[in-house]
């Protein structure tokens, strides 16, 4: 008898526990039908629904701005919408942690859409903001989070991919002309090492996520081809193989490999310090770092020498011409599970952030609204052709993401593959060619798994 009762209680608890945690699922969203009261494109921030009442929670990757700039944005926005309360939550390891949070369905109202979300999944998690046609002529990069011509995310800003460097250090080393190919770049790094006390190139190995910056250079910047990333990379055979003219992905990664191998980076990458590097480059203890244009304002703010920090294109030339990738940073997405009021409020705030906050310019990025002024730090890019990746053709929106995950190389989202270059260059156990061979093999089998015949 006792055993039977015990068994019953246990079974009861199992079901209780099961129902307690198994009920939230992105697909059974409770408010999927709740639409914002006004469409995004028709919203007039400051005039539309100023008495709207809502509580918004925003997940952001910019942990550095949560207590500063974002608070200013909130108070400016609240001057127009006093009944909308906004709270930010910063997440450091953004892509990984935010993906886990997304799967619970109940994470907040606005987030930066993690790069791990497949395009075909967008509508299960995010509210449609508009059709591509609504944004094509007014916004840059509106196609970044788009599926079937439906836009699910508005970019926070655009990034140019280049190299952030300390002008004073370069001058001290006697470098008068910025390098335009990997060989000259490495020679310049050597000059810095010989003539100054600065670390020529700082890898930021330990922080991890900083290394994914390298992936931003392999497409437009290294090929000058807007179709490379979403089209050619996905379909071509052995995309990581070496090209004789030193262009393409191999040239980018090989620059890192050689720099580490020749001792032109910090002595001990395992103990690099992301927050500390801002002051170090500002004070001239670091020559340069390979990071997106978003890094420039942070390095300028790292110390007293803001004027020394400058930005240059990645030193690769295709047929004698330099290109730089321009691409959208994270995009704001609105939770599909939020209520109609919350969705309206969220879109109003996103529209204000995009069009009136000046976020992109302060953060050294390309403004999203076409025609807005570029920040000063992008001066040296005026002679450079900016390449924006074309979207994948219809029906293949997911393909890059799937192959990327299945190959476990995880371009843009995980740093392990870039870290392995640094490790191999230090340990001397693999050449860059061997690493590229491994990646090509993984890429090929991932292509085959997803029904792509590499050409």
């Amino acid at each position: 008898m006792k055993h039977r009762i015990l068994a019953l209680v246990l079974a009861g608890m199992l079901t209780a526990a099961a129902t307690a945690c198994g009920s939230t699922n992105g697909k059974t969203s409770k408010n999927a039908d709740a639409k914002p009261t006004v469409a995004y494109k028709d919203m007039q921030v400051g005039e539309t629904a100023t008495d709207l009442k809502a509580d918004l929670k925003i997940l952001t990757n910019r942990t550095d701005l949560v207590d500063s700039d974002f608070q200013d944005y909130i108070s400016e926005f609240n001057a127009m919408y006093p009944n909308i309360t906004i709270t930010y939550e910063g997440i450091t390891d953004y892509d990984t942690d935010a993906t886990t949070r997304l799967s619970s369905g109940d994470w907040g109202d606005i987030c930066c859409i993690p790069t791990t979300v497949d395009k075909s999944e967008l509508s299960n998690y995010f509210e449609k903001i508009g059709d591509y046609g609504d944004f094509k002529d007014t916004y840059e990069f509106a196609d970044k989070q788009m599926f079937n011509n439906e836009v699910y995310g508005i970019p926070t800003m655009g990034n140019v991919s280049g190299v952030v460097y300390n002008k004073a250090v370069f001058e001290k080393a006697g470098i008068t002309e910025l390098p335009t190919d990997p060989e000259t770049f490495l020679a310049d790094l050597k000059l810095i090492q010989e003539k100054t006390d600065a670390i020529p190139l700082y890898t930021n190995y330990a922080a991890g996520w900083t290394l994914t910056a390298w992936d931003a250079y392999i497409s437009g910047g290294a090929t000058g081809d807007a179709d490379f990333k979403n089209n050619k990379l996905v379909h071509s055979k052995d995309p990581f193989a070496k090209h004789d003219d030193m262009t393409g992905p191999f040239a980018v990664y090989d620059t890192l490999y050689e720099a580490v191998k020749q001792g032109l980076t910090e002595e001990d990458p395992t103990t690099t310090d992301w927050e500390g590097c801002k002051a170090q480059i500002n004070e001239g203890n670091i020559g340069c770092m390979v990071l997106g244009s978003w890094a420039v304002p942070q390095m300028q703010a790292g110390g007293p020498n803001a004027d020394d920090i400058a930005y240059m294109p990645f030193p690769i030339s295709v047929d004698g011409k330099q290109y730089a990738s321009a691409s959208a940073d994270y995009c704001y997405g609105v939770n599909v599970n939020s209520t109609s009021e919350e969705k309206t409020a969220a879109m109003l705030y996103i529209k204000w952030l995009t069009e009136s906050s000046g976020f992109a310019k302060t953060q050294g990025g390309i403004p999203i609204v076409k025609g807005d002024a570029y920040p000063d730090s992008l001066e040296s890019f005026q002679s450079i052709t900016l390449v924006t990746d074309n979207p994948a053709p219809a029906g293949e929106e997911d393909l890059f993401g799937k192959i990327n995950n299945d190959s476990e190389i995880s371009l843009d989202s995980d740093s392990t593959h870039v870290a392995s270059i640094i490790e191999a260059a230090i340990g001397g156990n693999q050449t860059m060619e061997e690493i590229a061979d491994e990646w090509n093999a993984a890429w090929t089998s991932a292509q085959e798994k997803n029904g792509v015949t590499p050409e």
Partner: protein
Amino acid sequence: MDMAAHHTEVGLSKRKRQLKWSNVNVQKVVVTLTFLFVPLFLLVLFTYLPFFKMVQFSFYDMKYIGARKFVGLQNYVDVFTRDDCFNALKLSLYYMVGSVVQLALALLFATILSFNPKGGNFFRGALYFPSLVCGIAVGFIFKYFYTHGFVLDSILGLLGIPEDMLPFWLKDIRINNWVLVASSIWRYMGQNMVLFIGAIASVDKTQYEAAAIDGANAWHRFRYIILPSIRTIVVLNMILAISGSLSVFEIPYVITDGGFGTSTYFVLMDKLAHANQKVGLASAMAVVLLVLILLVSAVQKLAEKKLDSGIRTSKRRARK
């Protein structure tokens, strides 16, 4: 209402209730169940349910978000055919060697501290202290401890070893795993030690006196009195240490993030599950590891039983 009828009704139900409640066994069951409910509910919710879910996930090709696809045993096949999974398990050998050192040190300190040396309480606290610090914090402490030119190098510098002769503790693949094992020993040794001290306290003190009269020295005392008396606890700690070294996570995750050949099985599992979104594969890895740990413990228990019966027969023989 008829007063009398009402009265009898109340009396009846009261008697019924009394009948029920007076039964001690029924009371016992109810009280036991009530007390059990909360811990069991939590156990089911946070241990068994996630575990069953994980086993379920291991049969799917899935990401955290998006559709799942049933793939049968494919994930398990992958775990056994990929070369990185079992290479990662090889790293456990470092930690197993470390756990032997750790238990030896714990036994040494426990024995010394059991004989009430001067400042014994202070040392007991100091040695136990690392177990109280959270694993992530330990990771960060050691990250700076091992940074080139920081704590460890400065200490060695004071001893007269010049800095350029010292290796890069975390970067050099010949030593970095040993370096991580050392931090792991620092962290977990105190816990073993406290358990050993408790076990040694239960040893009958008169045995030492008797042994001393027979001319036993400190080593004899340890070898022939203490060690046999606390064998069960030693074996238990060994099982825990070995299964612990199969599932090392915090220390390599925080200090090196698995870089430079320090990626243990758990760190790899975390990378596959979160960075590469291969949830099914990572779940299968976890199940395989569970089976491995069960096997290892079973083998150890078996060896222990063999040892036990061996001792018993030899004792019997000695008595004869």
